[in-house]
């Protein structure tokens, strides 16, 4: 077999293609990940050498840290509520904006803008004002006849919702991916369906949705990971307030690592979260065989 033939074998070609990833992974990612794993068994204040303490960090976390459980609960709630809402909203808007119209480019840009602004200071400032007791949201509710004096951000049951709404409002990135997914569905499918007399609704459920499942799956996985690792929203807007009801897991982890000088504990927290997210993602991948449709299979 010549080299050329060898290179052409699928298994070799596969490695040729993913070689950049393997190099990058080994060079920049694997060492830090293992390092953090090792640190999770130490007491490490960053400024001096780490001290091995066995599984103390993990024991402390599960038995003697109420904030750990609190932030875990907040993060689960946030991720499990905001991710589906955001995806449904994104898909809905993508379906509307995929209509070719002269203005649609502008519309798409406008609906994408909130995501561009990301976690900027302006968003933080406005979000606080919007949900203040004398803010625009309450004024709006007043207009529709619901007298509302809630201080959204200082009420332990509503504060997390202001962050969820922010996540939904910034649906642009998911929308963009849905848009490009929608564009990939061959027109011929719809033409054939129209000839067969299938209505819009039927077309959506029998063509659009199944053909879109790879992209839906992608968005689901990415948003789930992002949802659990969310940091900025809490960090810039609520800082966990009030009474830790919006304290994200990652923010508490960051506080431990850098502000409380307990990098070892922070690493242990990161690994617990990694295991949880990996487990959830793994389940998603397992079930994907049942509902994700790939044209290439």
């Amino acid at each position, binding site marked *: 077999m010549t080299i050329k033939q060898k290179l*052409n074998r*699928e*298994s*070799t*070609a*596969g490695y040729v*293609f993913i070689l950049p*990833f*393997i190099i*990058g*992974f080994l060079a*920049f*990612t*694997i*060492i*830090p*990940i293992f*390092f*953090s794993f090792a640190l999770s068994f130490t007491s490490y204040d960053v400024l001096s050498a780490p001290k091995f303490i066995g599984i103390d960090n993990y024991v402390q976390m599960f038995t003697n840290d109420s904030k750990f459980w609190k932030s875990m609960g907040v993060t689960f709630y946030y991720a499990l509520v905001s991710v589906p809402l955001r995806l449904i909203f994104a898909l809905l808007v993508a379906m509307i904006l995929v209509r*070719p119209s002269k203005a*649609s*480019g502008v*519309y798409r840009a406008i*609906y994408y*803008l909130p995501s*561009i*602004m990301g976690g*900027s*200071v302006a968003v933080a*400032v*406005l979000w606080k*004002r919007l949900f203040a007791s004398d803010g625009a949201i309450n004024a709006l509710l007043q207009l529709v006849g619901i007298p509302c004096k809630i201080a959204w951000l200082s009420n332990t049951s509503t504060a997390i919702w202001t962050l969820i709404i922010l996540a939904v409002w910034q649906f642009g*990135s998911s929308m*963009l*991916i849905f848009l*490009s997914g929608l*564009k990939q569905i*061959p*027109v011929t499918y*719809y033409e054939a369906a129209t000839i067969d007399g299938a209505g819009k609704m039927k077309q959506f459920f029998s063509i659009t949705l199944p*053909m879109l499942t*790879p992209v839906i799956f*992608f968005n689901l*996985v990415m948003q789930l*990971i992002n949802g659990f*690792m969310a*940091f900025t929203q809490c960090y810039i807007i609520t800082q966990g307030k009030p009474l830790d009801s919006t304290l994200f897991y990652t923010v508490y*982890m*960051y506080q431990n*690592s*850098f502000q409380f000088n307990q990098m070892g504990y*922070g690493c242990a927290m*990161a690994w617990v*979260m990694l295991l949880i*997210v*990996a487990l959830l993602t793994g389940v998603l991948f397992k079930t994907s065989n049942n509902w994700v449709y*790939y*044209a*290439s*299979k």
Partner: protein
Amino acid sequence: MNYTQRKKIGTVIYHILICFFGIVMIYPLLWMVMSSFKDNTEIFTNAKSLIPKTFELTNYSTGWAGFGGISFSVFFRNSFVICILATVGTVISSAVIAYGFSRCNFKLRGFWFACMIVSMMMPFQIIMIPQFIIFKQLNWVGTFAPLIVPYFFGLPFGIFLIMQFIRGIPRELDEAAKIDGCSIYGIFVRVILPLIVPALVTTAIFSFMWRWDDFLAALLYLNKPSFYPVSLALKMFSDPSAQSNWGSMFAMASLSLIPIFVIFITMQKYLVEGISTTGMKD
């Protein structure tokens, strides 16, 4: 009312609704841009009103002056260099890697794929110290290299996204090309690449935007202020324990949105047009 009239009314309602929600969507942006024309003390005391009492351009001039004699033209240039190079690297490498993962069968494919997904689950704050040490060993600290080079080895987000698109392309196309004498590499370039343009464009938009906004890596790896990108420079207008220049911050933040916006506008055309043979019709 006949059919065409009904359709016309429907279209009008469609546009009105979209515009209404559009205003809700861009209100914070409007607020920021308008605030950038307000006097620094007016921004928060007169926050409810969009219209400034007096239109001030000084925020732009003092903001543009930058810090320590380094103006925003330098910060913008740095941002462009970092973002463009990193994005080019991301798109090329991610496409190549994604093709390998989705079209080739090889040993340990599942393992490497899992590695890639898991690497997205480690918070940057946790790995930043060891990563800093690696880049220091490479003598890259203080240069753009740590902000650019890693992206030439693929971005998990981009890889996974492009994979999903490739897996949506029927295998028959590959087979047909193979019969025509195409190698695995030829299929990638001639068949697959043209079909995944929307995915590449999406990856490019995201990559550019994320690199543009990223300040933490820049904070760590760059030392000289003359190397700072816009995202990092913007942070320095505020100092919670002393005076902050919010007006200038909003002015420069408004300017810094323009490039992302332009990129989005120009790129999204390719999303819409895509390839003439594919694409959804109304």
